[in-house]
């Protein structure tokens, strides 16, 4: 099947080439980072995780959101999603690979990565994160690939896949839960020290992931002969709005707890993000933009006539995706580090090389996603012919 990724139009090859150029440029910056150290990023003694780890966190959510297709299709027998479930699983594969690349990009000593396996440490959440992420990657690769292969041969998927598919449901929840546990179990970080962090991560994931998938469906319909289907897209849009509202609900719960209790350790981070603290407020415009985008996305998706118009739907999905990306990809990580444990305010903003390295990781993800989708669409076109 893989050979389908190697046959394509001029536009297909041009797109792959463009991605390779982006990856190459970013890799150049990565070599610079390897040579100089993480000092080329905006991270500092107080904000020790930044753009990379934030992207990692966000993309774990995108990966986990494949479960929003698997549950309706396999558990509720919602046949319509049979057409696009593999798109969700292939998106998960690309997202998990990006997650792993972002972790590697963030390491001070990347060649020692395997120390995590060499000295397994169950009391470290990072150890579990590695296990659930690699497991999830494997599950989606095996399931997605084999189900597509069966479809191509017009036979039902092998029986042994069923338990794996069922396993993928709790497993998807686990990857984002463990990722939240990286943060919410740390005693001195008031912003993250909330039991609602994992549920909120999942909710925002189930909004941002399917929102992105809708955009991908619209794109696939435009550039290939395969139509993911209007009903499928409409159902996904309802998933997005449920997820996005749940995310805002959890967020407002957090805001209430911090503001009503007025405990400084919790309140100060929110103050910093939304109003600035002691005259420092780099992220303030970003956070309000994120909130405006998320709310606008919810409003558009709630109005049936707007949601049913696919042009408006695309805008609403883009709003939701970008809003959550800013909130989770910029605010969540940096916000937890400012103010620092000594209650000093030292801000963070990513540098140009840092952003370029991140862009290269996204480029790699898109390269993998493009090739996987090429195979998927190729099979669909073959069956239609």
């Amino acid at each position, binding site marked *: 099947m893989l050979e389908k990724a190697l046959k394509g139009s001029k536009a297909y090859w041009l797109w792959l080439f463009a991605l390779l150029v982006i990856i190459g440029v970013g890799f150049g910056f990565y070599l610079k980072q390897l040579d100089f150290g993480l000092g080329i990023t905006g991270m500092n003694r107080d904000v020790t995780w930044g753009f990379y780890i934030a992207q990692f966190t966000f993309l774990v959510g995108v990966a986990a959101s494949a479960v929003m297709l698997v549950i309706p299709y396999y558990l509720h027998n919602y046949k319509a999603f049979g057409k696009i479930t593999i798109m969700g699983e292939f998106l998960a594969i690309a997202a998990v690979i990006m997650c792993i690349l972002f972790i590697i990009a963030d390491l001070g000593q990347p060649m020692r990565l395997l120390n995590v396996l060499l000295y397994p440490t169950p009391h470290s959440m990072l150890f579990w994160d590695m296990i659930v992420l690699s497991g999830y990657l494997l599950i989606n690769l095996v399931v997605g690939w084999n189900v597509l292969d069966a479809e191509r041969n017009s036979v039902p998927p092998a029986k042994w896949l069923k338990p794996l598919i069922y396993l993928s449901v709790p497993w998807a929840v686990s990857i984002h839960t463990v990722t939240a546990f990286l943060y919410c179990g740390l*005693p001195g970080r008031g912003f993250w020290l909330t039991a609602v962090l994992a549920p909120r991560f999942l909710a925002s994931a189930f909004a941002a992931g399917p929102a992105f998938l809708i955009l991908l469906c619209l794109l696939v319909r435009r550039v290939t002969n395969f139509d993911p289907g209007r009903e499928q897209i409409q159902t996904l849009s309802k998933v997005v709005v449920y997820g996005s509202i749940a995310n805002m609900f959890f967020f407002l719960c957090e805001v209430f707890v911090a503001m009503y209790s007025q405990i400084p350790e919790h309140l100060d981070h929110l103050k910093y993000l939304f109003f600035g603290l002691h005259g420092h407020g780099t992220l303030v415009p970003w956070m309000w933009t994120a909130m405006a985008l998320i709310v606008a996305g919810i409003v558009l998706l709630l109005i049936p006539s707007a949601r049913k118009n696919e042009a408006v739907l695309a805008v609403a999905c883009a709003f939701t995706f970008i809003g959550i990306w800013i909130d989770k990809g910029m605010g969540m990580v940096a916000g937890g580090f400012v103010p620092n444990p000594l209650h000093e305010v030292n801000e963070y903003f990513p540098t140009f090389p840092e952003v370029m390295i991140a862009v290269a990781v996204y480029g790699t993800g898109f390269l993998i996603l493009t090739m996987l989708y090429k195979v998927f669409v190729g099979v669909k076109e073959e069956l239609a012919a």
Partner: protein
Amino acid sequence: MENNRRSFLKFAGVSVLGLGSLSLLDGLTSDDVIAASGQTSAAEATYKQAANALTAQRWGMAIDTRKLNDRICRNMEKACHRLHNVPDLENKKHEIKWIWDTEYKHAFPAKTDPFLAERFEHLPIPVLCNHCANPPCVQACPTQATFQREDGIVLMDFHRCIGCRFCMAACPYGSRSFNFRDPREAIKNQNTEFPTRMKGVVEKCNFCAERLAVGKQPACVEASKGALIFGDLEDPQSEIRQVLKENYAIRRKQNLGTNPSVYYLV
């Protein structure tokens, strides 16, 4: 079907190869490839104890704030940083510090009162690793590069650290520093008795484990002119226990349950 299985295997093989070559490349481009050694526990790799080594059940420190002034603090910091090859970096963002002094309101952010005793307004308060009995950094570290010794000292294996900085997120005291760049260029007078670090690893105060092993008190204690008392918290006869019995002492964020081993006499 057979053909497809083969192509899947090929696909998987190429992916694995790709990842493998990435790590190979990392190895080639770094100037330090002494990755991990074979030992199973980093704890075994700590200092060889001399016959006159100072030992304790649980090492602790009492800082007598009444005896502190700017000069003593400066001397303690200098003694420590010079001894441990802590670089003097101009860029504050990349700063490495093992012991430094800060204001009361920063050392004890939850204990900042509007009508604070005047003495504390500008009193320098030294802060360092608390060598917690229940250290969140040790819990967070995915490779046991940071670990707790039998005597309570929390140490780092600089050769095992992968530089993930999870320990820095976990530390509620901001006691850890990361080498954002090669520190060696910024060490003025290198002490050849103590290792330098490479870029990309975390470091922090080690309660001078290397000095205790040869019968010496920590460098900051020596430079403190009696303001710092170092000893065994589990030994009721020790000087530190006597001092803590007779004086009211506070600890940083003791409400978090980390059980710090550094006390401040106020």
